């Protein structure tokens, strides 16, 4: 399969990329790792007239703690995330997710920024970002903007990014003591999109009371979804087995999965309940370590 004709442009700086996008208009698309966009172009689901390659822009690939935040550059590949010792030590939720994302050769190309900017509820990173309460940093013609994750996902393949905006950095509140996160998705086969997936991040105080919690769901709604009812139930309480059971029920009730090749709606609701409970327990275990 061969993509429809387009014209390739390489940008070597953010400024150049944004200027190119302004000049070429809405028929131009940015490409970073290219492992979501190029497959869609080969299938002719996407037929952009111009591709602006942003993968060669320097300085957008990093993972560091700075001030109150963990900061990840948008061009950091999934493989770089997978092998990063800071993430392994303090943010094991990333290891959980990346291990289950596509396969190693795809992860050598795919970037965290692309995974989020694609705006696909089937991707794994959006649920993590919801659970971790990330802030998305983007650059566009009007300069830099900062978008809370709850305002980022607008619809199927639609995000708060305006034409010309480039997602440049992900900021996540720094890991505190007594905090933990976990992610799991059920997949039909290795490398598949999730049948359903759940990301949990929580913070406990010294008495074991849940101070902050985020629960994000993968591929069970048109837009990446936060399980608000579950978060509200657990915040301010000592998390018990009964509460975890209840949140599992909320997940199965509040999600909006559709029957498809990956499973029936009822099956997806059923596994969501199970994964949600398991991930709450795993995150709790990690927070208590």
């Amino acid at each position: 399969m061969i993509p429809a004709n387009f014209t390739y442009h390489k940008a070597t700086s953010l400024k150049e990329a944004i200027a190119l996008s302004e000049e070429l208009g809405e028929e131009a698309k940015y490409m970073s790792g290219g492992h979501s966009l190029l497959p869609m172009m080969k299938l002719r689901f996407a037929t952009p007239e111009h591709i602006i390659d942003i993968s060669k822009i320097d300085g957008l690939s990093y993972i560091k703690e700075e001030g109150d935040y963990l900061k990840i550059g948008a061009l950091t590949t999934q493989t770089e995330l997978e092998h990063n010792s800071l993430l392994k030590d303090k943010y094991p939720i990333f290891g959980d997710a990346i291990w289950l994302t596509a396969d190693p050769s795809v992860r050598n190309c795919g970037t965290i920024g692309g995974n989020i900017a694609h705006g696909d509820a089937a991707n794994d990173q959006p649920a993590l970002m919801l659970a971790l309460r990330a802030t998305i940093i983007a650059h566009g013609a009007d300069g830099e903007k900062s978008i809370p994750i709850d305002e980022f996902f607008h619809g199927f393949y639609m995000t708060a990014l305006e034409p010309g905006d480039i997602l440049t950095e992900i900021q996540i509140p720094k890991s505190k003591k007594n905090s933990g996160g976990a992610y799991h998705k059920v997949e039909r086969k290795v490398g598949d999109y999730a049948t359903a997936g759940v990301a949990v991040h929580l913070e406990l105080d010294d008495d074991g009371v849940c101070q902050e919690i985020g629960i994000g769901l993968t591929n069970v709604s048109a837009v990446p979804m936060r399980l608000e009812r579950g978060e509200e139930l657990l915040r301010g309480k000592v998390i018990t087995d009964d509460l975890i059971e209840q949140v599992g029920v909320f997940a199965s009730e509040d999600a909006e999965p559709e029957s498809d090749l990956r499973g029936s709606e009822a099956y997806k609701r059923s596994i969501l309940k199970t994964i949600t409970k398991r991930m709450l327990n795993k995150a709790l275990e990690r927070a208590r370590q």
Partner: protein
Amino acid sequence: MAKHKVTMTINGQSVTAEVDSRLLLVHFIRENLDMTGTHIGCDTSSCGACTILIDGKSVKSCTYLTVRADGANITTIEGIAADGTNHPLQQAFHDQHGLHCGFCTPGMIMRSIDLLNTNPNPTEKEIRWGISGNLCRCTGYNNIVKSVQQAAKEMAKETKETV
């Protein structure tokens, strides 16, 4: 149609060409360079038959624009050992019957090179996950895993000898 001049190193040789924006790297390698060891299987980045190394990292060349490889250092199955000799992975696939029809083998080997560079002593589970993006419809994978295990041992010995 926009043409781009690209220069890359393929198996140690510098190659310069004028290519269309939309030319996929696997087509460039197979059709422009006549190197047909890199296979096209699914053409949807699922099967891994088209796996090559770009700057040492395994990549599915069916999902990579040639123009993006400008300046890159590329290795294909043709370039991993001198003529008449076998790379330890090629030898191991031969010794352990790591193939039946052989269609997936070049991709399996290119992927395994990256795997063993990153993790020279992988567990069986790490090998199985490491080649999870490469599909084989014949072997059932057991002999492929054994092949990678044999190659890992051989390559560890070689590293020791050179040190």
